[in-house]
């Protein structure tokens, strides 16, 4: 299983990697990208099974990245990991095709709850 982590913060990418391990999702192949543009390229290059993306990033936001993916026909499972947890943001994310939104700060239990069903079904 290959998971693409997209976040402009290297510190946050490290924390996401650590939390995946703590949540029992160790052993997956992890790929990292620092913004939506790099994320799109990484989807093309690595064909991940799941994308975990921040929302606010320079160059291209996560929501624009998701819209670009869906417009190009990609149906890669996609979830947000973001500080933007307001109901209207969750609605926008789901309308754009996101499977879930994990709000920062998060816990390993939160990852298990949202990622468990997705990774089980991939």
């Amino acid at each position, binding site marked *: 299983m290959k998971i693409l982590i997209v976040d*402009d*913060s*290297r*510190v*946050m990418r*490290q*924390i996401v990697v*650590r939390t995946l391990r703590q949540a029992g999702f160790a052993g997956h192949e992890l790929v990292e990208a620092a913004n939506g543009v790099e994320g799109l390229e990484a989807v093309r290059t690595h064909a991940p099974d799941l994308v975990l993306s921040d929302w*606010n*990033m*320079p160059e291209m936001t996560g929501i624009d990245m998701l819209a670009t993916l869906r417009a190009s026909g990609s149906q890669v499972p996609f979830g947000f990991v*973001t*500080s*933007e*947890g*307001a109901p*209207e943001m969750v609605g926008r994310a789901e309308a754009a095709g996101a499977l879930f939104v994990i*709000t*920062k*700060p*998060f*816990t390993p239990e939160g990852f298990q709850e949202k990622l468990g069903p997705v990774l089980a079904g991939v």
Partner: protein
Amino acid sequence: MSIVSDGEVVLTPTDLEEIAGWVWSAFLSEDGAMMSPLLADAPLDTDGEIVHASVAVHGAWNGQILLELTEETALDVSRAMLQTNDVSPEDVTDAVGELVNMVGGNVKSLMSSPSALTLPMVMSGKVKHRATHAVSEVCRADLEWRGKPLRVSVWSSTRENENGGTP
């Protein structure tokens, strides 16, 4: 958690303490050190050299969320977040920016919507924040982590003064 009065959302210091507590307990409590309200009567010396991290919110509510802490505490939180002592100055900027981003994102969710959050901005040095006709402090929380003081504050601004940066 927040109170709406005459259409204006009022955020309390307790709200800020709670939000900062979530962030710190999630990513900065590996050694059991928790965020708490400032116990000692020694708030952050904002006249000294400190690290200022901020995010702005634009939209139905306009304002900024500010995190201030000493350079030493900024280094400590970066080491705790990355779980290594080997951190670069870029890591410190990144870590402190992420902290204020998380606090800001959660503050934003309590305020009038829709609105958008900017990317974080981090500066070091002597920066004075003061109220003007266009910017006013809504509330602040003086907090303590590992015995070190830090401050989280929320500033409300008019649309004329919403171009990011510190108040």
